[in-house]
C-alpha cells in the first residue's frame, strides 16, 4: 500500500485529522500556559518574558512553521472532508434524525471549525502578524504584546468575538479530543470513557482560560 493511498482513504484522511488535531491540542497547552501569565499581577512582565522566549529562538520559530503546516493541513483536510461527506447524500431527508442519534456539536465540526478559522484570522491579524512583521520576520525586536492585548481588549466587540471564538473552540474540542483517540484506534471502552472525560475537562478549562483573558482585561482585572 502506497503512502498516498493510505492518507487518501477515508480512514487515512481521518487519521490525518486526528494526528494534526492532537498536535494542535498540544499547541493549545503551550499557548494557554503562556497566556495565563497575564494573571501574574506583574503588569505583564512574566507574560512578555514568555512571549519573548517564543519569539526569539530559531528552534521555536522553526517549530512555528510546523504549527502553521499543522493548521493548514487540519483546515484544508477538514473542509475537504466536510464537502466530500456532504456529497454522499444528494437527496436528503424530510425529517432529520437530529439530536436523537448524535450531539449537535459532533455533527457541526465543519461549522465550528470554520468559525474558529474566522476567529483565527482576526486573532493572527491582531497579534501574530503585527509582531512578526515588526520583527522583520526574523529575530528582530518584538512588540510589547501585553500592552497590545490591553489596547485590543478595551473594545467590547473584540471581546465578544474572542469569547465566541472560545465557545466554538470548546465544542470543537469536546468532540475532537475523544474522536482523535478513536480515530487512532483506542477501542477499549474503559480508556475511551476516561479519554472522554479528560477531553471534556480539557476543552472546558482551556476554552474558559482563553475566554477569561479578554474578559479580565476588558473589566480591568489585570
Amino acid at each position: 500500500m502506497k503512502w498516498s493511498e493510505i492518507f487518501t482513504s477515508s480512514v487515512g484522511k481521518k487519521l490525518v485529522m486526528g494526528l494534526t488535531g492532537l498536535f494542535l491540542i498540544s499547541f493549545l497547552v503551550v499557548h494557554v500556559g503562556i497566556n495565563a501569565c497575564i494573571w501574574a499581577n506583574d503588569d505583564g512582565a512574566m507574560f512578555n518574558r514568555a512571549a519573548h522566549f517564543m519569539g526569539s529562538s530559531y528552534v521555536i520559530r522553526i517549530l512555528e512553521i510546523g504549527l502553521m503546516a499543522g493548521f493548514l493541513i487540519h483546515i484544508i483536510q477538514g473542509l475537504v472532508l466536510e464537502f466530500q461527506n456532504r456529497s454522499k447524500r444528494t437527496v436528503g431527508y424530510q425529517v432529520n434524525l437530529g439530536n436523537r442519534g448524535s450531539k449537535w456539536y459532533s455533527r457541526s465540526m465543519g461549522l465550528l471549525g470554520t468559525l474558529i478559522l474566522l476567529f483565527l484570522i482576526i486573532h493572527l491579524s491582531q497579534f501574530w502578524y503585527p509582531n512578526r512583521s515588526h520583527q522583520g520576520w526574523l529575530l528582530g525586536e518584538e512588540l510589547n504584546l501585553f500592552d497590545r492585548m490591553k489596547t485590543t481588549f478595551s473594545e467590547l466587540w473584540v471581546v465578544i468575538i474572542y469569547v465566541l471564538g472560545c465557545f466554538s473552540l470548546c465544542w470543537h474540542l469536546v468532540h475532537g479530543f475523544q474522536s482523535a483517540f478513536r480515530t487512532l484506534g483506542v477501542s477499549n471502552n474503559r480508556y475511551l470513557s476516561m479519554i472522554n472525560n479528560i477531553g471534556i475537562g480539557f476543552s472546558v478549562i482551556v476554552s474558559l482560560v482563553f475566554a477569561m483573558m479578554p474578559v479580565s482585561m476588558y473589566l480591568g482585572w489585570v
Partner: protein
Amino acid sequence: MEHYTMNLNLKVWKQKNAASKGKFETFEVKDISSEMSFLEMFDVLNERLINEGKEPVAFDHDCREGICGMCSMYINGRPHGPWHGTTTCQLHMRAFKDGDTIVVEPWRANAFPVIKDLMVDRTAFDRIIQAGGYISVNTGNAVDGNAIPIEKEHADKSFAAAACIGCGACVAACKNSSAMLFVSAKVSHLALLPQGDPERKTRVLNMVTQMDKEGFGACTNTGACEAVCPKEISIANIARLNGEYTMAALSADNSHD
C-alpha cells in the same frame, strides 16, 4: 396492556423506479390496531390501495422477526422508527397514537440508490464483504473445533460484532452516509478471533478501499449509527477498525509494487 385502534396520516415516499423522480404521497389509514406491527399496518394500506385500483407501496421485508436485515424504513426521521434496538418489522403500532402523522422515507445515501418507493439497493455491502469479509478456508480442511481455544471475552465480543444484520440503518442515520459501523463490525468479528489473524491486515485494507469505492462517506465519530443500530453494535468497533487499519497500512511492505 390496553389495546386501542387509531387513524393515521402517512406521508410516504413514492418513486416508480431508479431513473424516475420521486415524491411524497399522503395516505390516511383507519382502524389500525395497536397490536399490529408497523409492516402489518403497511399491509393494510396496500390491500386498500390495490382494492382501489392504485399502486401499492413497495418496501423490502422478509423474516419479520428482526434478523434478516431486509426491512429498511426511515420512520419519522429515524431508521427503523422510534424504538431503540428494534427493526422496522418488530416495531409495533403501540408506538403511535390516534391522529399521528408518520413520515416514511427510504434509506438515503448515494451508495444505496432507490429501486422503487421505499426499497433501496444495498448490494454495496455484499461487495465490501467480497473484498475481504471472510476467512479463506476451503471446505474440508478444518482442524477440530476445540483445537483452537478462544478466550471467552474475545469470543463474546466477536459474537456481539457478528450480530450485525447488514440492514444499512447505520448508513441511513450517518450524516456522512458512512458505512463504517457495518464494515468495522465485520472487521472486528474476524480480527478478534485467532482464525481471522492470518488475513487481518489485507482484510481491513481491502474492505476500506472497497467501502470508499462504493461511495460511502468517512466516519466522524458522531455516534448516530450506534444509536439507531437495531442490534446495538458498539461504535468501539469503529475505533478497532481504525487501529487495525493504521497498523496494517503502516506495516505494509510495498516492495512488490
